């Protein structure tokens, strides 16, 4: 393309020179006798210079010869011969030749400088356009694609592949254009320890693979491999400058990705520690009471009356229940984590679920605080009764934990034609506003160092497995209220369970 343009320019210049010679010569021919030999020489400078401007110095040389001949032949007497005649006309011819040569040279130099400047500007603009693509907050994979895409489009390669250092060998980071054949890939990415065969990029029109190393301050970042030039050899300088920019951008993106990964690991680690802390706290708390009560009972130096003795025994029994429920919760949690939690729905009476939930608590003393309101009989829901009774138990346990002794914890049941809504309200301080969103998170360690523990997270997971979720709000009278609903299984007119709503196991 480059050479073709040059040829076209030269032909244009030559044609213009010829046309201009024809025009000015024929114009001057009419009053040849009125103008001096020197004046016509000046006019004949014009076609030559114009030709140089368009076609360069090569055209100029032809123009000079042409001008010399035209001048001598037409404007220097004797006319229409190449003989010069008078001596002074020799001088005129000589001066014309020298002037034209000198001016052509200068003009041609100017033209070359201008086209070089244009070339440079274009180069810079292209680089700018390409580098602009590398800017911005891109993910690594996106950036790699941008690099290969823009190299392929801007330099007209058949295919471009960007190889990055993998754990053992090079790996394809991104590819654009025609996909490389397996053979090519094998050549590019040999097994570890085997040198790859590649060709250096060069000016000759080699259609085979060529490569360019991407480096930042001497550190290898990747390898850009290109195949085939569709039209002309690429601008090597532009390509390598762009490659440098790309290397820098890729390294930056890689560093950012590493930083992100490190942060993620740290986060996971923190979460694990919180989990461990929470579990060990939840296990240790009942153990502490059991040990204290048991050692009090067995200490010969301690004299206890009958009621104190039975209270300590009750504590041991209740805390053992709490501990075993915690173990159940932990096992359930692993089931949830493993994603194998599928509720086995059956039709159960809501009052039965509540009763079972309360009895699962075990703590005989605290159970006196629980108040069941509006619990209807013969209202049936579709639920996994083991899971839902545990939800109720967990909600009650949480409510009891936050209620002052002697203040009631209420279970309230209301029904709509399609659903049964079950709510557990406590008389504690309520849920602080910031905590509402996180209260069901596993091992959420709430505000001041107390632990919400597993109970709420598991309750929420179980209700979610039934397709619902637990709502939490603060009651106007103070205290927190946790509620969830279950699908109601209606009775038909004769008081039997209607068949169509009987869900399968």
């Amino acid at each position, binding site marked *: 393309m480059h050479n073709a343009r040059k040829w076209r320019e030269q032909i244009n210049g030559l044609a213009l020179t010829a046309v201009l010679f024809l025009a000015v010569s024929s114009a001057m021919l009419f009053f040849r006798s009125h103008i001096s030999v020197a004046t016509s020489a000046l006019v004949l400078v014009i076609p030559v210079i114009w030709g140089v401007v368009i076609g360069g110095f090569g055209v100029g040389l032809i123009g000079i010869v042409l001008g010399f001949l035209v001048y001598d032949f037409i404007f220097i007497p004797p006319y229409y011969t190449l003989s010069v005649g008078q001596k002074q006309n020799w001088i005129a011819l000589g001066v014309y030749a020298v002037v034209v040569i000198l001016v052509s040279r200068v003009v041609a130099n100017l033209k070359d400088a201008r086209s070089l400047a244009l070339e440079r500007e274009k180069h810079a603009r292209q680089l700018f356009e390409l580098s602009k693509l590398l800017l911005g907050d891109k993910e690594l994979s996106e950036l790699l694609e941008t690099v290969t895409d823009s190299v392929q489009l801007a330099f007209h390669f058949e295919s471009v592949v960007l190889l990055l250092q993998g754990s053992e060998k090079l790996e394809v980071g991104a590819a654009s254009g025609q996909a490389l054949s397996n053979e090519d890939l094998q050549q590019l990415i040999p097994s570890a320890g085997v040198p790859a065969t590649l060709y250096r990029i060069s000016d000759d029109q080699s259609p085979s693979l060529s490569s360019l190393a991407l480096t930042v301050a001497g550190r290898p970042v990747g390898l850009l491999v290109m195949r085939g030039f569709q039209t002309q050899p690429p601008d090597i300088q532009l390509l390598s400058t762009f490659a440098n920019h790309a290397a820098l951008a890729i390294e930056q993106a890689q560093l950012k990705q590493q930083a992100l990964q490190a942060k993620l690991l740290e986060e996971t680690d923190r979460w694990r520690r919180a989990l461990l802390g929470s579990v060990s706290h939840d296990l240790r708390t009942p153990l*502490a009471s059991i040990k204290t*009560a048991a050692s009090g009972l067995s200490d010969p130096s*301690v*004299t206890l009356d009958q009621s104190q003795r039975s209270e300590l025994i009750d504590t041991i029994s209740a805390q053992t229940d709490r501990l075993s429920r915690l173990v159940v919760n932990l096992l359930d949690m692993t089931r949830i984590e493993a994603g194998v939690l599928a509720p086995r729905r059956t039709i159960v009476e809501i009052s039965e679920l509540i009763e079972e939930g309360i009895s699962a608590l075990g703590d005989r003393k605290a159970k006196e605080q629980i108040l069941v309101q509006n619990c209807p009989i013969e209202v049936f829901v579709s639920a996994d009764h083991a899971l839902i009774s545990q939800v109720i138990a967990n909600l009650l346990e949480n409510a009891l934990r936050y209620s002052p002794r002697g203040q009631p914890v209420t279970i309230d049941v209301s029904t709509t034609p399609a659903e049964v809504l079950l709510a557990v309200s406590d008389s504690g301080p309520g849920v602080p506003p910031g905590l509402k969103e996180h209260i069901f998170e596993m091992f959420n360690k709430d505000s001041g*160092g*107390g632990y919400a523990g597993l109970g709420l997270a598991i309750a929420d997971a179980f209700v979610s497995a039934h397709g619902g979720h637990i709502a939490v709000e603060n009651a106007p009278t103070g205290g927190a209220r946790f509620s969830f609903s279950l699908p109601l299984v209606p009775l038909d007119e004769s008081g039997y369970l209607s068949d169509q709503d009987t869900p399968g196991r």
Partner: protein
Amino acid sequence: MIKILLVDDDRSLLRALEIGLGAKGYETANSRNGNDGLAQAVLFSPDLILLDLGLPDLNGIEFCRKFRTFSDTPILVLSAAEDEMRKVEALDAGADDYVTKPFGMAELEARIRVALRHAKGRPDRNTSAVTTVGAISIDWEKRIVTNGGAAVDLTAKEFDLLSYLAKNSGKVYTHHQILRDIWGRGYGEETQYLRVYINRLRKKLGDTDGKIIKTNPGIGYQLLDCDDES
């Protein structure tokens, strides 16, 4: 009657402690959170506080810090074994000793007795020139230490270290506290200095099995009567 304030958010542990300590002749009051605990500490004016580190409102370390601004009643921290860091922080913040959960009544009572005895015997620097801890007596003015009547020849640093521990005998001082107060701020982490000096002190005091200067592994040291049991 000796009064003990129990600060813990776990109701059943509180109840078990109330019964156990009550049966051993202590008068108890309890609090289920830190702010109430601070208020009770003023109203009930206990002789000792049993403090759980994981309170719902303010953590045990803050409790210690706030409480120490107005009282030097001994604080016994109840903590889980994995709470090493928080235990050290609580001691730095002014707690006297710690008991690791789960604990038996006998162990707890022994710690309570040690804390109470040392709190009572604490020297008032303004009135008494001599402090006695078990068989050891320290003359502050003359900087003389005797053990069972016999003079013990101590270097200046050794004297500083011993008298520092004796100021609050029975209190567990953390490595960091001792290094900071005796060697200076820059030495906060140089526990090997401390080990060397403690060993020399023990040798000079004839404390071969560490009963006078007790090591709390990973935490610090405390000075005890030889007849303290723990």
